[in-house]
């Protein structure tokens, strides 16, 4: 009862508050943008047409009705919550009458697959290699560390662009955009998916891995000089046990936090990688929605992101005592 009341319930309440406040801000911010969705749609629908001014006014009214932008902002806000609780994110303005749920549903698997894989792989490889580098300092590990330190500050879009030029132009081995053939889970789809996703995945993996490597190496190095590791070393414990049980495990707390928050953030997509490699994820969808003042799409993706990060924080918070027994609720 004490655990539930003093540790779990406050965190759940905090989670609910973060989400409600976050969603409210998400509702308001696009409406503060100078970009007017009706004007955007008008320009798109009447491109190069010379309309009568009266016809322009009539079209504007029609668009307001289509997009559900009639009424005061308070009315829109409550209508938005009503739809949201019913699981409906409304229609897209830029791709009317498509539902935002469908558009996100199409982009989400691509983003989740790419970022889950690259985040977890980068995390695992980074921690293992980084901890090894801390534990076994030498020429090879110093060389690896040097490479990682050089790679880490390079913006990932520069790496993406270099890969694009090298592997689509000079060595035209990969497609220029995501080319996915066949139905999901069929062999052809899997093959084309891996082919198309290889470059964006490697780009993200390299940048994620270098950060985790540097972090794991620094944490491991600090842990090696701690009293309990020194004592265990003098006690003659085997290397494997020393490294896994005394060094690696004691560096895990910040690593788990990092993994949790990174996993939560995958719902934001990875905009530049998607743009460079023509990958159909959430990032590109969000960018187009911002350009078009497509409030509902912006809100839908931001909503995912808020829920993702808040939930990840909650899980990380709740799992601390499991990872590190020294952590106890107060």
């Amino acid at each position, binding site marked *: 009862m004490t655990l539930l009341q003093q540790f779990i319930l406050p965190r759940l309440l905090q989670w609910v508050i973060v989400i409600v406040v976050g969603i409210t801000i998400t509702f308001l911010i696009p409406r503060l943008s*100078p970009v007017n969705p009706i004007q955007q749609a008008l320009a798109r629908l009447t*491109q190069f047409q010379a309309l009568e001014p009266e016809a322009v006014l009539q079209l504007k009214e029609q668009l307001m009705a289509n997009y559900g932008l009639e009424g005061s902002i308070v009315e829109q806000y409550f209508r938005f919550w009503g739809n949201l609780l019913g699981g409906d994110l409304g229609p897209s303005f830029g791709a009317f009458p498509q539902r935002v749920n469908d558009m996100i549903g199409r982009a989400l698997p691509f983003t989740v697959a790419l970022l889950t894989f690259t985040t977890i792989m980068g995390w695992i490889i980074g921690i293992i290699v980084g901890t090894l580098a801390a534990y076994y300092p030498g020429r090879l590990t110093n060389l690896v560390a040097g490479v990682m330190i050089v790679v880490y500050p390079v913006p990932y879009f520069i790496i993406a662009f270099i890969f694009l030029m090298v592997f689509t132009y000079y060595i035209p081995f990969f497609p220029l955009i995501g080319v996915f053939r066949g139905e999901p889970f069929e062999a052809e789809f899997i093959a084309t998916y891996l082919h198309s996703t*290889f470059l964006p995945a490697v780009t993200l993996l390299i940048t994620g891995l270098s950060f985790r490597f540097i972090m794991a190496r620094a944490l491991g190095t600090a842990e090696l000089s701690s009293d309990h590791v020194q004592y265990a070393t003098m006690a003659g414990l085997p290397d494997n046990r020393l490294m896994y049980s005394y060094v690696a495990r004691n560096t895990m707390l910040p690593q788990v936090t990092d993994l949790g928050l990174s996993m939560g953030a995958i719902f934001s997509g990875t905009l530049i990688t998607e743009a460079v490699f023509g990958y159909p994820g959430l990032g590109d969808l969000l960018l187009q929605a911002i350009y078009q003042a497509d409030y509902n799409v912006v809100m839908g993706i931001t909503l995912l992101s808020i829920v993702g990060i808040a939930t990840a924080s909650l899980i990380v918070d709740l799992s601390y005592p499991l990872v590190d027994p020294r952590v106890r609720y107060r």
Partner: protein
Amino acid sequence: MFRKLILVAIALMVLVPALNVTAQPSGLPVDVPREELFVMDQIFRWSVIDNYNVWGPASGTPHRHALMFETLWYLDQETGNIMSGASNEPPVYNDDYTQMTVTLVDSLKWSDGEAFNADDLVYTVETVWNTPELSFGGWHAQFADFLESVEKVDDHTVTFTLNRPAPRFHKNFEARWAGLYMMPEHAFSQIEDLVNYTYQDGPYLGLYAPVEMDPNGFWNLFKKRDDPQNTAVCQYHMNEDCGPGYVLTILYGDSTKKVIAMTRGELDAFMNVDFEAFESLLASTPTAKSWYPEFPWAYPNETSSRLIRFNFDTHEWTNNKDVRWALALSLDIVQLQTEYIGGVAKVVYVNVPYTPKLAELYYNHPRMQEWVENLEIDVAGEPYKPYDGTVADRIGEWADEQGYAQPAETAAASYGSGWWKYDTDTAAKLLEHNGYTRDGNGDWFTPEGERFSFSIQAAPDEVDSFRVANAAADMWNDFGIDVELQGLERSVWSANFETGQFETDAPWLSFVLPDGDGWPQMRSYHSKYYVPAPELHNALGGGTPARLVDPVLDELIDAMESLHPQDPQNLELVHQYLQHWVENMYYISTVSFKKFVTWNELYWTNPPSAENDVYMPLYWFQGGRFSIGGLESLGG
């Protein structure tokens, strides 16, 4: 175990793509023999998937309307001529323009074999007229505003009765970008909810039908109909089997990726790239060419032009004609056109692009020529002739110095009209006459003693406009005015001009249509649509971001309204409008549109070009259908 898993994952990532590449050497997403497939640059990513209902608000129509749909006439931007669609005769109006009669071609069929006839046109107009949700193109609103009735006279004749004189009512069915798309009455009359109908299975009146689409919107595959001889495109080309068997539209992305795709043989035509990317394409792909085989390469005749616009509503200094002229005279147009635009766009002194037809109607028309050569402005009480007719020749000399081989046509045909003298002494006199002062560093100060400074806003993704703004800012700063260039993302830039939050900016527009008519483009400048900033400039339906109020323009616009576009009196009024505009230097016009519309003649040949200039190469417009239908296979 863990390490083994990682190794297996990495091995899979490397090996599977390798296996896949051997099976699919092309980066194209479709299984169609390359010699039957024409691949063209898709100008944006589709967000509405597998929905070909182009009448509803869902619509994005580029490419599709050229391939799948039909309207009555096409206004070609290269020639200014009307090309036949579902009608091959001009519309006939009664004397007071309250009735329009249209005669349809009797040889067109829908892709299911049904004949196209007057029932289809009447059904289309009535359906759009009666369905506000079918709002694309504004046709519903136009019909609601003008139409009294539409009636079938016989199988191929339809009469429209209008509620007031409307000599341009036929423009609703005349595609510059798009004309009202015909609906198949025999099929659509069976559909209950036409607004939400996705129209994936036809029948279509155009040459192509969609067969496959990327669920992510990057590409769309179209197949030629089995009966191409029954389409307007093949009948125009007098070829019973015109056009490639398949057309793939595909979005690769920015200039770099388009050039790489064309180099890889995975793209046959693209809409545009920046100058530097085009140069690298020429170096790597000898089969690629744009409009001219040599300098200035790019297609120069899309009907629009770049300019510098003033906001007359919120900044007092913009309302001083002398200051506007001083700004024009302190720009070196030759330097702007060569160093900033690369020499590849035509100079214009007013917002009329220098296409062959429009040059004849405006720049080379004796009335306009005489006027501009003798134009005088008042400079501190002295008359001054600002026109410099040597601009095109000087650009030609610059091109010679660069070692470019040039087209055989005249310098004006390649580089456009004359422009205003680069005369900073006269510009200084104009400013000083209006109380502006200059300090020892050459910096200008307003009559109130403040530093003369202003901003110019432009969208960097509209490359030539941004470069025009950049050139102007550089030159005005050199002249001693403190000008800040603000590069804004396009939607923010447009939001700013819509609400009057700018001093000057660099947009693009044309005062006339490709056939020379001005009223449809000019009427928004009527002061009855004026609203003050920050209200939306089109709050009353018309209106322009400049928020200009000028009774002379109002009178000219009113006089044009009741005249037929081809009435000689209409042309005279447009001339007067342009002259008044220039005398007041309301906008500083700079160059026409140019686009590096580029074709790689590796698999397909006979695209429109300077040597084959029968129609425009703008394949994403509805009239682009002629350029696609005219392609001939090189056999792969």
